């Protein structure tokens, strides 16, 4: 197995991109990434594309070939990866494996979701397909509903409060104000969250990540040749993934995401690091409760302890552990298929020291955590700056 590095990154601004369709978004992020990597179109050997539901959102399947074509990569293999909200992280792992195995040298991984061309309720229905269609979606159990069931149980078991949930959104909005790519660049207060419209008790609108358009692209290469393209290649030191039941209630616990725990344990082991070694992490905060679960399942806090710690400010920028410096899914936006790759872009920026107003001081080791559905897929990557 060869060491793998990220040598190029590209990101669109996330948000309601009324003037741009799926292919324009892919091209915008893609051109930035290949420019950043300083490669030519002919250097790219394979493309992995990720989108959760482009067929539902814009009626376009077969997205990876389109991505390859739009970026001018002539006739190379192109493969679409779909793993619900973890499509991006899963595609990144496929790219990683292609390079690590020695099969390919320069690999492009790009994710996109164009979500605003459909109504909110159509988008809600499309996203519902990430859960169990036969037993959840068919009963009108929405995606926020699934996380609400987890939140309610977490509140019951650990005394987690609605204010603590809200503090996740407040922190992530605060970070997003410092990120030029973020959808929401406006600070909010706990009271704003508590006063926002109820979606699925106890989750309100401001506990939920938004519907977003956006794309993110990374370029991977073997570490041994990475310096040829980029002065500060970022080494992927662990790429782990696990799965679980699609249906929430088919699991033993509603207060942990087992796929996250397994991915994280394996990632720490393979990277030879511990949770306390991580300087910056992008976690999958599709809902505020999801960030609390992630902080516990990734081993940063004991079960039941993360909510208070977040409320107390321990995970704000440049505090104990900087979490979701991009603004997370909540503040930066959540174009589903792009999210997992955007997380890698953000960590790359942080480890390169290019994160400007939201730079984590002395960031050496970073982590990304991408979840599909209510936890049926989880992908964890650990990355390191190579000097």
């Amino acid at each position, binding site marked *: 197995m060869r060491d793998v590095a990220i040598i190029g990154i590209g990101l669109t601004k996330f948000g309601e991109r009324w003037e741009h369709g799926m292919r324009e978004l892919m091209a915008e992020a893609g051109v930035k990434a290949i420019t950043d990597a300083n490669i030519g179109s002919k250097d790219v050997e394979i493309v992995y594309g990720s989108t959760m539901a482009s067929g539902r959102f814009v009626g376009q399947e077969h997205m990876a070939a389109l991505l390859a074509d739009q970026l001018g990569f002539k006739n190379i293999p192109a493969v679409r990866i779909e793993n619900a909200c973890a499509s991006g992280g899963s595609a990144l792992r496929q790219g990683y494996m292609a390079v690590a195995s020695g099969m390919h040298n320069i690999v492009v991984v790009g994710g996109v979701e164009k979500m605003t061309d459909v109504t909110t*309720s159509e988008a809600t229905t499309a996203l519902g397909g990430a859960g169990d269609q036969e037993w959840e979606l068919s*009963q009108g159990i929405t995606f*926020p*509903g699934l996380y609400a*069931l987890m939140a309610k149980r977490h509140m019951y078991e650990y005394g987690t409060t609605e204010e603590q949930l809200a503090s996740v959104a407040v922190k992530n909005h605060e970070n997003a104000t410092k990120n030029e790519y973020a959808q929401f660049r406006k600070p909010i207060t706990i009271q704003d969250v508590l006063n926002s419209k109820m979606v699925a008790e106890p989750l309100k609108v401001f506990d939920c990540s938004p519907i977003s358009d956006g794309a993110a692209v990374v370029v991977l290469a073997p570490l041994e040749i990475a310096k040829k393209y980029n002065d500060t290649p970022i080494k992927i030191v662990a790429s782990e993934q696990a799965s679980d039941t699609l*249906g929430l209630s088919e699991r033993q616990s*509603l207060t942990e995401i087992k796929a996250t725990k397994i991915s994280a344990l394996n990632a720490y082991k393979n990277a030879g690091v511990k949770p306390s070694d991580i300087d910056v992490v992008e976690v999958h905060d599709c809902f505020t409760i999801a960030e609390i679960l992630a902080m516990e399942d990734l081993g940063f806090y004991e079960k039941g302890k993360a909510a208070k710690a977040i409320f107390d400010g321990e995970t704000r920028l440049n505090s104990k552990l900087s979490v979701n410096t991009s603004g997370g899914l909540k503040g930066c936006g959540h174009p589903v298929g792009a999210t997992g790759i955007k997380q890698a872009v953000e960590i790359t920026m942080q480890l390169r020291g290019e994160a400007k107003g939201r730079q984590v001081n002395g960031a050496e080791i970073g982590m990304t955590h991408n979840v599909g559905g209510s936890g049926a897929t989880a992908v964890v990557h650990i990355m390191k700056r190579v000097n």
Partner: protein
Amino acid sequence: MEKASASAWRKFSARYNMIGNVCKTCNTKYFPPRIVCKNCGRNTKMESFAFTGNGEIFSFTKIHVPSEAFKESAPYVIGVIKLDEGPLVEGHIVESSKEPQIGAKVKQVFRRMYTDGEEGLITYHFKFELI
């Protein structure tokens, strides 16, 4: 949602009567029913098993923003129910003079789940009622 009648029909015994299954190799009970036992793999020996539909609320939420097909019923309460026989299952908790709470006892009732417009199929399903 289910426009095709066959996709609803093939699940009637589970959706009307909460008939799941049990693996006779390890005695694990499943709802919804499945083909392969999570513990036994190729040594699975499934038999159908009728759940009573009695249980207690393990978690619940009231959904205020529904998916397209459930707009007319909003807000509605969804529970994760711990069945007396063991498994957790998700389902609606119907109207009650009491507020739902974790630990409250429920039993199954028979209700409409989804009506496909003015002319389409009506699907029926178990739901739960506070005792």
